């Protein structure tokens, strides 16, 4: 059937995906670098803004106040990252669909109030209080999805209404006192304030990503080779794994000079890894990207679009509820202030700064993790400088605006470079 294409016959011994002579194959280390530069130029920025941002932030703040890079300050920073980072993880799910949830802050506040009221005031077991908070989150997410799917209400409006309504509910169930203290000695509060991993566990865990990368990499290479497809060069695989392991081990070593790696941060990382697997390796994740990229095309491919929206909104609100539980444990209280202020915007900004597009169809679970580290680093640095919240709000607002501008410009560039 390829009579008209003699070149294909000549290339028979080449890998299945390497027979078109027009495409430049970026093999080896120089090739990998070149394709990275090309990707960035065409607007496929990936994690680059985060990396640059983190370096700039570290330099600026450590010049202004050397305490910023002290191990124990970084440990504190990771504690703070965990609560909002989990909200941000939920935001990633809805942003991938091209939707938004503006009520994650209120949802987390409500969930923290539920913990205080059910656990401390009503004396129920803490597990039941946690369960109730999570179920509330799931139900509210389902409500948003229902309003979107059945009534065609834009998620922007539905969740804006939710922002106010949930805040009201939080104030209502907290009652006139407005604040409930959680018992300091309880495991939940210790988890949010002091529990860190023993050194051997944190060092062991830091080895895992590199190991898994190499193992999976070898398995994939073997399968691709036997299927006559091109394979990633071994040097790149091993180089990446080595670089990853060295940087993680160094980070862990440095944090262990202080109090160590918080378990709560470990929970955030675990959730990020699970969500990353779900988004990249399952049919559900593929459908999320498809619906975010072209809703009608996804529908015509037989994807149940409504169910995808339902799952994403439910996941987002449930994660927000979990974030609220953690913030209650971090502050050892359920208060009227929980989830208010800049929590909402920080969660959204983190996802966008990390590289998840506001326009849907692009992003990753890791963007929540990296983005929240940037956001918390800024807020932590500003606190160290004794700047009050008025300035903090203005600066965070400006950072969000910059992140959105970068996102829009990158999208425009991608469109003109055919990378959508």
């Amino acid at each position: 059937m390829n009579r008209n294409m003699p070149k294909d016959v000549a290339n028979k011994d080449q890998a299945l995906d390497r027979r078109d002579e027009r495409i430049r194959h970026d093999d080896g280390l120089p090739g990998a670098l070149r394709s990275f530069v090309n990707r960035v130029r065409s607007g496929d920025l990936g994690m680059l803004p985060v990396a640059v941002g983190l370096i700039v932030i570290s330099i600026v703040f450590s010049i202004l106040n050397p305490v910023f890079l002290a191990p124990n300050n970084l440990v504190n920073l990771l504690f703070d990252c965990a609560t909002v980072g989990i909200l941000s993880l939920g935001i990633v799910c809805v942003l991938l669909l091209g939707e938004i949830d503006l009520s994650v802050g209120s949802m987390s506040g409500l969930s923290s109030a539920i913990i205080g009221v059910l656990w401390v005031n009503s004396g129920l077991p803490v597990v039941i209080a946690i369960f109730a908070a999570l179920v509330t989150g799931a139900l509210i997410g389902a409500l948003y999805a229902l309003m979107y799917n059945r009534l065609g209400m834009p998620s922007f409006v539905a969740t804006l209404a939710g922002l106010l309504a949930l805040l009201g509910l939080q104030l209502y169930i907290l009652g006139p006192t407005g604040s409930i203290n959680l018992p300091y000695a309880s495991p939940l509060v210790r988890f949010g304030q002091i529990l860190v991993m023993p050194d051997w566990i944190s060092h062991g865990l830091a080895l895992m990503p590199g190991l898994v990368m190499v193992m999976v990499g070898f398995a994939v290479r073997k399968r691709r080779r036997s299927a006559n497809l091109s394979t990633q060069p071994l040097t790149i695989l091993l180089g990446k794994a080595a670089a990853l392991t060295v940087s993680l081990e160094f980070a862990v070593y440095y944090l262990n000079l202080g109090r160590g790696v918080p378990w709560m941060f470990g929970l955030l990382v675990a959730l990020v890894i699970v969500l990353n697997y779900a988004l990249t390796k399952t049919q559900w994740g593929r459908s999320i990207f498809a619906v975010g990229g072209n809703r009608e095309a996804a529908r015509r491919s037989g994807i149940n679009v409504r169910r995808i929206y339902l799952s994403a909104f439910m996941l987002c609100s449930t994660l927000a509820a979990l974030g609220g539980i953690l913030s209650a444990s971090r502050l050892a209280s359920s208060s009227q202030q929980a989830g208010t202020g800049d929590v909402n915007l920080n969660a959204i900004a983190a996802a966008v700064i990390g590289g998840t597009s506001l326009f849907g169809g692009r992003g990753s679970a890791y963007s929540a993790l990296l983005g929240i580290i940037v956001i918390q680093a800024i807020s932590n640095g500003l606190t160290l400088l004794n700047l009050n919240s008025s300035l903090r709000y203005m600066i965070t607002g400006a950072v969000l605006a910059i992140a959105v501008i970068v996102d829009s410009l990158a999208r425009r560039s991608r469109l003109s470079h055919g990378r959508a």
Partner: protein
Amino acid sequence: MVQEHRANPEKGNPILRLTGISKNFGAVSALTDIDLEVQSGEVVALVGDNGAGKSTLIKILAGVHQPSSGRIEFCGQPVSLDSPSRALELGIATVFQDLALCENLDVVANLFLGHELSPWNLDEVAMEVRAWTLLKELAARIPSVREPVASLSGGQRQTVAIARSLLLDPKIIMLDEPTAALGVAQTAEVLNLIERVRDRGLGVIIISHNMEDVRAVADRIVVLRLGRNNGVFRPDASNQELVASITGATENSVSRRLDRRTGHNGLNGSAT
């Protein structure tokens, strides 16, 4: 207006039968009282002017639109095609005029969208191998199946959309202007492909404005005009007859143009 067709051992039982299908978009009646039958091992060409309702009819069969009234029988059973997934389940595959691909996903992801291999741990290697095989069958010129579809040319995208329709072993394939953006070799491959699937006993509905392509593969030519059935022809019907039926008048812009160019010789030799 003849109903008989070329002898073919595998044909005979109707796969799809539409009776009295109508579709209104608000005040516009895009389709009125359409009847259509497709048998296994048969290629039916659907022709008509722009806006005649061809794509609307295809979309009803694909489950994208619901008919306002009428009856659809699939393999002898009355069915309601209330969603695209229902149509795909029954074995009705469609290549849409607007292609309906996700630009942010790569070629492999688009081919398998909604029907990925091993849903809980996607088998990318198997999917990629199958993608290359399918694309080779269509003589596709696609440099890499791991680039986002946004980076492909119009014809390459069309090939991807056609390849996708073959993936699920359908009983009937509907192609809405499949060759509109294709090169010479690729058009020939698509026509070959249509003949191959016909010989495998599948039903094919093809929409095209290219009468040469239509004549080359169709067993029957069904004409729609302003949303109504306007005649059924054999592929050897004369151009004049077809054009008259499509435009609704023997005296039309096409005939006038021909007359002008041939000096009133009434040329229609290409038909036979």
